[in-house]
């Protein structure tokens, strides 16, 4: 469950990136966040994993009001979420296996459990056979699959992705979308900011359009709605 109430965000430089956002996302939903560049999509997403704090208003994740959260509680929040980025954010000096295992080592999981879980998710993204390679030895699409594997390895209720297909060609983008759909089918909430018109108009889901820090549209099975 993700819930925002009257969320307002003003950056220190005076830019207002969220101007009264209220929204509810139920467990198991798949949501696209669309809108022009600079509209506030990334800000909207960053406030969900407490990378940015709202200036006012409340953000509630899995029943917890994270705006009132102390700094030392943020790690706990992050463990209940999976986050995926446009630029993959893999550690270049760790192998594929180590990169995914990392998210479980952090929560002091038992090595046997780590091994088992990492194998499972690498299997899910279809890259088990490349687990000993370094990220630099993989294609962009493969790197993004690894990053998704890392985001789901600790079985989060919610996966948040900020333009996960932004750096990928169409073929790899579809591949990534298949994985997100699979994750969603298993009951995980997926929130995905995207500029990919094709995808939004083909795999029909709930579409939240943000413009100027406000929700301009919120339609189940809606379309991308912008040119180009």
């Amino acid at each position, binding site marked *: 469950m993700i819930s925002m109430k009257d969320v307002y965000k003003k950056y220190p430089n005076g830019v207002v990136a969220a101007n009264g956002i209220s929204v509810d996302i139920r467990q198991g939903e798949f949501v696209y966040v669309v809108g022009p560049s600079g509209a506030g999509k990334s800000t909207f997403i960053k406030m969900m994993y407490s990378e940015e704090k709202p200036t006012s208003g409340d953000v509630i994740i899995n029943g917890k009001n994270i705006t009132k959260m102390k700094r030392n509680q*943020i*790690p706990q929040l992050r463990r209940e979420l999976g986050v995926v980025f446009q630029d993959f*954010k893999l550690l270049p000096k760790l192998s594929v296996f180590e990169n995914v295992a990392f998210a479980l080592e*952090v929560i002091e999981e038992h090595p046997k459990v780590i091994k088992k879980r990492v194998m499972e998710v690498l299997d899910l993204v279809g890259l088990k056979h490349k687990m000993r390679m370094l990220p630099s030895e993989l294609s962009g699409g493969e790197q993004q699959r690894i990053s998704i594997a890392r985001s789901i390895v600790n079985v989060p209720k919610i996966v948040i992705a900020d333009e996960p297909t932004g750096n990928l060609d169409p073929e790899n983008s579809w591949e990534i979308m298949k994985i997100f759909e699979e994750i969603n089918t298993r009951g995980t909430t997926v929130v995905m900011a995207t500029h990919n018109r094709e995808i939004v108009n083909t795999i029909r889901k709930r579409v939240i359009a943000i413009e100027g820090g406000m929700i301009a549209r919120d339609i189940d099975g809606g379309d991308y709605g912008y040119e180009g």
Partner: protein
Amino acid sequence: MKARTIRRHFRESLKSLSRNGWMSFASISAVTVTLLLVGVFAIIMLNLNNTASSVEEDVEVKVLINIIEDEQQLKAAEDKLIQQVKSISGVAEARYSSKDEELNLLIEKLGEEFKLYEQSNPLRSAIYVKAEDPLEILTISEKIRKLENVHSVVDGKDTVENLFGFLETARNIGLVLILGLLFTVIFLISNTIRITIIARKDEIEIMKLVGATNSFVRIPFLLEGIWIGILGSIIPMIAVSVAYHNIYDALAPRLKGQLLQLLEVSPLIWQVNGLMIILGIFIGLWGSFMSVRKFLKA
């Protein structure tokens, strides 16, 4: 924290040392250079200080007593004078030396031909005075001069002043060098840290993203800092030990009877080595702490 996690931190800190090969090398080199400077400097300063304090301890003035023919009157005058000298504040020691003892000293110093004077000793009896604070010696000798039955005071005014002047200068130069060294060290280390921060920024960001607590992020870095400190102190410890050993063997025999005396190899070398490894660990820890601190705040 689980034992497994502690082991993981150890393993991780060592792996990361080798993964960040060049970065580690740069940090270790910075520590090495710093400690070499510190080690050489510590040895020079400790030796200089030792010489200074032993020289200071040796500073004394010689008070020559008026000649009085009558033995008993002389004895009384001498006793009174000794009492008076001892009661001057700041006097640590007043040692009486009769004119016969003075002659013996002279014979010892200058040769048998002075035995001639044993028949009729022309010398004066004397009092050797040491001050509690060697720097006070000239003030004290001024006071003694004004006492009764004092013929003269040999205080080697120029020698004492020159010596103290030299020691003062040496210490001041030492202080300036310490300050200069400190700036060099801070510059070296902070530069290395800055590069390390840039190199590790992503790593820390990702750790935090997947829910690592601050201490989980920090501990491997701190351990890594300790390794860097220890590795960085190896070369300086060996170099300083070997160098001082050789210098001592070569110079110590030649310095016999000279003002400058070298400190024994042991324990000096152990003290300096200890200082270097502790300082190395401290620098490594401090560097790591500074480099992660910034990113853990956010």
